[in-house]
């Protein structure tokens, strides 16, 4: 394991960077990034540490953002209330989906989560309050505890940062908890774990619910930041995206998902510029079109990651340092 001091220093540096970021980076963008980072971490808790590949996390992300959005926009709830409610909703949804999906293992689990999420997508599509393809618009940021006005980007930024850090800390703790140990054991050899008296399914379910809840937290926060919730959040492509984030960053590593999220979000927003840059560098005109072929690029990265770069960036670094990843 990496020495704890090294760890602490690293995290301290990162935290500092987070605190200073708005000075250099565009705050709204930064907030969005944080939300997705949290999303990815929550997802990784399941994939990286429990070995369950969920293809339906969009349901929790989007579900929570709709709930928060609805309560804040039409029911006049405050930001905190909204976020809490959204998170709880996601947890509940997670409990139900998990309860059903955990009946099957491995790839089946993935397919089931995918199918359930798709079902949820259709429900959202048809439900009146989501506004269908118009999305749920005009979610007010409101006042934090009636004191701090969140309409200021900076104020909101630090709230989001706090939320993200808290979420990240929780994931880190879960991984290194007695519970985490049992998860590892189950991932390794389920029948043995059972014969030692551990009800594997209940452990998986709890892990699933935790992951769902944190995902919800991310979703709710995002809605607050951007002021709306749309169908994209519940669409299966979003589930795919978060998988990619975790993959690029390195599954089963704590920081991997954060890095992955950063890369993907930047890519989504900047691909055009990247392409133009390439074009001017290489003089190959095709790159100019890059901005218009995000799916291709994402797909390509996906394939490359799976084939050549399975440890992901952070995983690779740790590996180079001869460190065993989770």
């Amino acid at each position, binding site marked *: 394991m990496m020495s704890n001091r090294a760890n602490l220093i690293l995290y301290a540096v990162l935290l500092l960077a987070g605190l200073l970021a708005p000075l250099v980076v565009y705050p709204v963008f930064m907030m969005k990034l944080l939300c997705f980072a949290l999303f990815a971490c929550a997802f990784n808790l399941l994939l990286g540490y429990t070995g369950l590949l969920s293809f339906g996390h969009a349901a929790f992300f989007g579900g929570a953002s709709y709930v928060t959005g609805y309560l804040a926009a039409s029911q006049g709830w405050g930001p905190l209330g909204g976020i809490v409610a959204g998170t709880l909703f996601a947890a509940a949804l997670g409990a139900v989906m998990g309860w059903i999906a955990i009946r099957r293992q491995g790839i089946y689990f993935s397919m089931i989560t995918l199918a359930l999420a798709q079902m949820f997508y259709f429900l959202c599509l048809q439900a009146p309050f989501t506004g269908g393809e118009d999305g749920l618009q005009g979610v007010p940021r409101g006042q934090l505890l009636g004191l701090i006005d969140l309409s200021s980007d900076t104020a909101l930024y630090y709230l989001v940062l706090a939320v993200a850090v808290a979420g990240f800390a929780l994931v880190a703790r879960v991984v290194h908890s*007695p519970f985490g140990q049992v998860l590892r054991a189950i991932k*390794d050899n389920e029948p043995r774990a*059972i014969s*030692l008296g*551990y009800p594997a399914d209940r*452990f998986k379910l709890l892990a699933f619910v935790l992951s769902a809840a944190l995902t919800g937290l991310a979703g709710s926060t995002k809605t607050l930041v951007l002021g709306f919730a749309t169908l994209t959040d519940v669409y299966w492509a979003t589930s795919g995206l978060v998988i990619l984030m975790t993959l690029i960053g390195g599954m089963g590593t704590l920081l991997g998902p954060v890095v992955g999220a950063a890369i993907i979000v930047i890519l989504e927003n900047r691909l055009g510029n990247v392409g133009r840059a390439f074009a001017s560098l290489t003089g190959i005109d095709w790159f100019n079109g890059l901005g218009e072929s995000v799916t291709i690029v994402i797909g390509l990265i996906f394939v490359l990651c799976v084939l050549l770069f399975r440890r992901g960036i952070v995983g690779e670094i740790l590996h180079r340092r001869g460190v065993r990843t989770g």
Partner: protein
Amino acid sequence: MSDPILQAEHISRRFGDFLAVDDVSLNVQRGHIHALIGPNGAGKTTCFNLLTKFLAPTSGRILFNGQDITADSPVQVARRGVIRSFQISAVFPGMTVLENVRLGLQRGLGVSFHFWRSQSLLSQLDARAMELLAEVDLQDMAHELTANLPYGRKRALEIATTLGMEPELMLLDEPTQGMGHEDVGRVTALIKKVSRGRTILMVEHNMNVISAIADRITVLQQGKVLAEGDYAAVSSNPEVMQAYMGSADVALQGAHA
């Protein structure tokens, strides 16, 4: 005076048209090392699976300490203190040897669902874990990754883990299978040692092991109980020799001298 810890009453298990275990009644005395022997396919492993509820008996009932556990789930059975090992080794390859044993002990703390606590509170178990490892001579491999152990050592680790559960009743399915000879000796001694204050039900093909430590032996054949008694009685039983040991000359030598 008889004090049965585990009673199986007329349990049967059929697979499709095939009766793997056919109306077996078993009476395991507290404190005994009770061996279950029989030709391949006699139904030994299946019996284990029934007694630990990894399989549901088609008929019959099972009593543990007088309580009916026929309806329990494997986890419940385990929690009552009936711990089994498997015919094929069962360890957590991705964890270190120490972690393997510790995981067995961890349940005792009752914190396994505490995802908000630090795992450092498990280190209180390390001492006990090392003891257990010492018992099977794994102490100096404590921090190895289990995957890198040869087969025999994995079996030993499995037993150590099982012991950690402080089981009232241990079921060992061919604990010495695939072990080097010095391992066999060591494990036999180990079983004898841990049998104090415990009851052990084991499947074993190695006659030396059985003759050395078994207090009572039940011979299964084609799912039925063929004979029961102590080693002398059983090994001199002509039916048993016929069915199991083939001919007298190997009776005492067995498969694994």
